């Protein structure tokens, strides 16, 4: 299990190979890459700046992987999240999950992204023609997370 918060870009091929290394029991690899869009709420985005809470962010990402591990039969998982200043079409976030069968990896990957968007301390500041502003949290993201809640 790996968690990284970094300014540098990442290479999904390198990361997948590393996760697969020396394991022959992996039957499925599911990955998600989030990118900076050039259009948000009708405005052209020229730049995105990401801030995080060093220490808490890493712990919270590790906790998200632990939760996924306790719910699905997955072998390994990795989360890489970039911070600092990014441009449209830049990669922001990478989630990779390995498992024996695809079902667990698909579900765990989606679960981890939904939790990351609502629980991990990252904040986006967007620059457009009107200047800079903090991106508001979306209730649709809370709804996406809440569908994973287990009925007691």
């Amino acid at each position, binding site marked *: 299990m790996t968690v990284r918060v970094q300014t540098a870009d990442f290479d999904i091929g390198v990361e997948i190979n590393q996760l697969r290394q020396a394991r022959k029991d992996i039957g499925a690899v599911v990955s998600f890459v*989030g990118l900076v869009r050039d259009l948000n709420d009708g405005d052209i985005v020229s730049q995105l700046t*990401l*801030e*995080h*809470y060093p*220490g*808490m962010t890493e*712990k*919270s990402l590790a906790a998200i992987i632990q939760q996924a591990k306790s719910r699905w039969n997955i072998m390994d998982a990795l989360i890489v*999240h970039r911070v600092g200043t990014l441009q449209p079409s830049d990669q*922001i*976030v990478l989630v990779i999950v390995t498992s024996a069968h695809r079902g667990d990896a698909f579900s765990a990957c989606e679960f981890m*992204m939904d939790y*990351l*968007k*609502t*629980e*991990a*301390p*990252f*904040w*986006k*500041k967007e620059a457009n023609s009107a200047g800079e502003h*903090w*991106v*508001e*949290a979306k209730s649709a993201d809370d709804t996406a997370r809440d569908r994973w809640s287990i009925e007691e």
Partner: protein
Amino acid sequence: MKIKLFYFARLKETLKYSTEDLELPDDALTILKLKSVLAKRGDVWGQMLMGKLKVRAAINHELVDDKAVINDGDEVAFFPPVTGG
């Protein structure tokens, strides 16, 4: 008691603070009480911590609600709802 405070994103920018050490009376202190103490600094402090904007809090890197109790030596953080991913 002594605590360490951190502010992030819009709060950090508006309050013009990223971190501070605070000495407080030893009474039982909750997140809500701490917010009201800080809000008394006036203007933007009240708007940011007790106003209409949603504020989330963490104690020692764990997300908590307003009722959470703060202890001596704790690291407390205030920030807006998260927007990563």
